[in-house]
C-alpha cells in the first residue's frame, strides 16, 4: 500500500514540496512536475533535503518539464529517476492512491 505524491510548484516559491516530503511514508514515490522540477537540480539549496528524502522514498522527475527548463539527466541529484508521460501514467497505476500537493 503506497502513495504517489505529485508536486508542481518550486520549493523556492511555495512550501508544498517541503510539506510533501514531511508527509511521505517509507516506500512512497514523489514525482516532481512543472515548476517542481527545479527541486531535482543538484547543487540547489534544497539538494540536501532531497537527498535525505531519497533514502526513504523513490524520487522521480518528469522529463519534458525538465527539458523545457533547460535541464537534463546530468543536472539531477543522484538517485532521482527520469520518467516520461507514459512513466507518469505507470506510476499512477502502480500506486494505491495519488496525493497532489497543490
Amino acid at each position, binding site marked *: *500500500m503506497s*502513495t504517489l505524491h505529485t508536486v508542481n510548484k518550486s520549493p523556492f516559491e511555495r*512550501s*508544498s514540496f517541503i*510539506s510533501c516530503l*514531511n*508527509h*511521505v*511514508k517509507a516506500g512512497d514515490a514523489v514525482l516532481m512536475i512543472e515548476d517542481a522540477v527545479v527541486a531535482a537540480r543538484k547543487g540547489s539549496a534544497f539538494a540536501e533535503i532531497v537527498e535525505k528524502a531519497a533514502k526513504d522514498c523513490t524520487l522521480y522527475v518528469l522529463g519534458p518539464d525538465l527539458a523545457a527548463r533547460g535541464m537534463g539527466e546530468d543536472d539531477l541529484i543522484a538517485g532521482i529517476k527520469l520518467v516520461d508521460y507514459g512513466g507518469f501514467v505507470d506510476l499512477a497505476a502502480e500506486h*494505491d*492512491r*495519488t*496525493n*497532489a*500537493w*497543490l
Partner: protein
Amino acid sequence: MAMDEMPDVPDVTKKFLYVNRKAPYGTIYALESLEVVLIGAAFEQDVSLAFLDDGVYQLVDGQDTTGIGMKNFSPTYRALGDYEVTKLYVEKESLEERGLTPDDLMQITYEDEDDDWAEKPSIRIVSRAEMIDIMADQDVILSF
C-alpha cells in the same frame, strides 16, 4: 424525483480524504473544497477532511469578511455534521507553526446517531505522524 427513478449507485463505500492546505479568501481553493465536500456528501462515502499548513486558518473562529466584500463561508463547516461529514482532522504542528492553538478554532460538532444522538466534536487534533497514516489509509485523496 421518485425513488424508483433514482440512478443506480454502486454499493461500494470508499474512503475519501479532502486535503485543505490554503488559507481562505486569498484564493478560491477553500470555498471550492467545501462545495465539493457538500456535493460529495450526497454519494454516502466515508468522507474525512484534513487541514494542514495554512489550511488550518479555514477553521479559525471569529472570521469577519465584511471589510473585504466576500462571503464568510466559515459557518458552513458547522453544517457538515448534518451531511454525516464528522471527521475534520487538524494537524497540530501546522497550528503551532502559525502561533495557533486548538482553542482558536471554531466549535464544530455532530450528533452521533450510534450513541443516542450525543453531541460530539468533529475537529480532531492529530500529530503530523498521525496525519501521514490518515493519508495512507485512503482510497481517494482530493487536494485543494
